[in-house]
């Protein structure tokens, strides 16, 4: 089973990816690590954020590791580089 999700890129990740948002099709159950790999395959320059960025799935932080995330059509996924608010 696959889901069509919206991916949002912020700050440095948007500059590296060259886009601010896009739709991609991914398995409905996937580890956050594999999800990240898909994004890096699509935009190889994102690899400089390896080990620094985290993801957000439906606006909840998700570390990039072997935990499974469950995705549905229309879900929002975001690439979150290191924060610098304040």
């Amino acid at each position, binding site marked *: 089973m696959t889901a069509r999700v919206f991916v*949002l890129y*912020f*700050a*440095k990740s948007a*500059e590296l990816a060259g886009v601010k948002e896009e739709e991609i099709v991914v398995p409905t159950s996937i580890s956050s690590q594999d999800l990240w790999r898909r994004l890096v395959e699509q935009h190889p320059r994102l690899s400089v954020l390896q080990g620094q960025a985290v993801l*957000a799935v439906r*606006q909840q932080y998700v570390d990039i590791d072997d935990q499974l995330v469950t995705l549905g059509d229309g879900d929002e996924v*975001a690439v*979150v*580089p*290191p*924060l*610098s*608010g*304040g």
Partner: protein
Amino acid sequence: MPSLTGSCFSSEMGESEARRDVFKLSPDWLSVQEVVDAVSSSSCGAISIFIGTTREDKLDGQKVIRLEYEAYELMAQSEFTKLCADIRGRWPSVTHICVHHRLGWVEVGQASVVMAISSPHRHDGQQAIQHCINQLKAKIPIWKKEVYDTQDCSWKENAE
């Protein structure tokens, strides 16, 4: 988003006052008075406030000429809501919380964030405001880019 109906200096004796959590991302200059008004309450003896600005700075001989802020706006709001719940769990006496944060271009020296917390007594509010800025930097999805006089720029990263 809760509305900014500050009840500054009003008299509301006897009414039980709803606690306000106010968050605003704004491209405009931040008004300290507006943030103070948003947390004012006749039941509060203390308002603790923090203003964060960008210092004039040089990086490798380049001078910072402005900042650019960007946010994941909906998630910033939901992380702020979580942060307020966290603060109220730690300091139950906290009455109102208000955070205004700039977005877009910010001149060096202008406030990028203004936050205020009201509380009946000052100690709770003073601890809560420190926790609030620490957690905002750690959790709320906002990013800052420094733009230099050489036209270079770089995305910053908050210390742990």
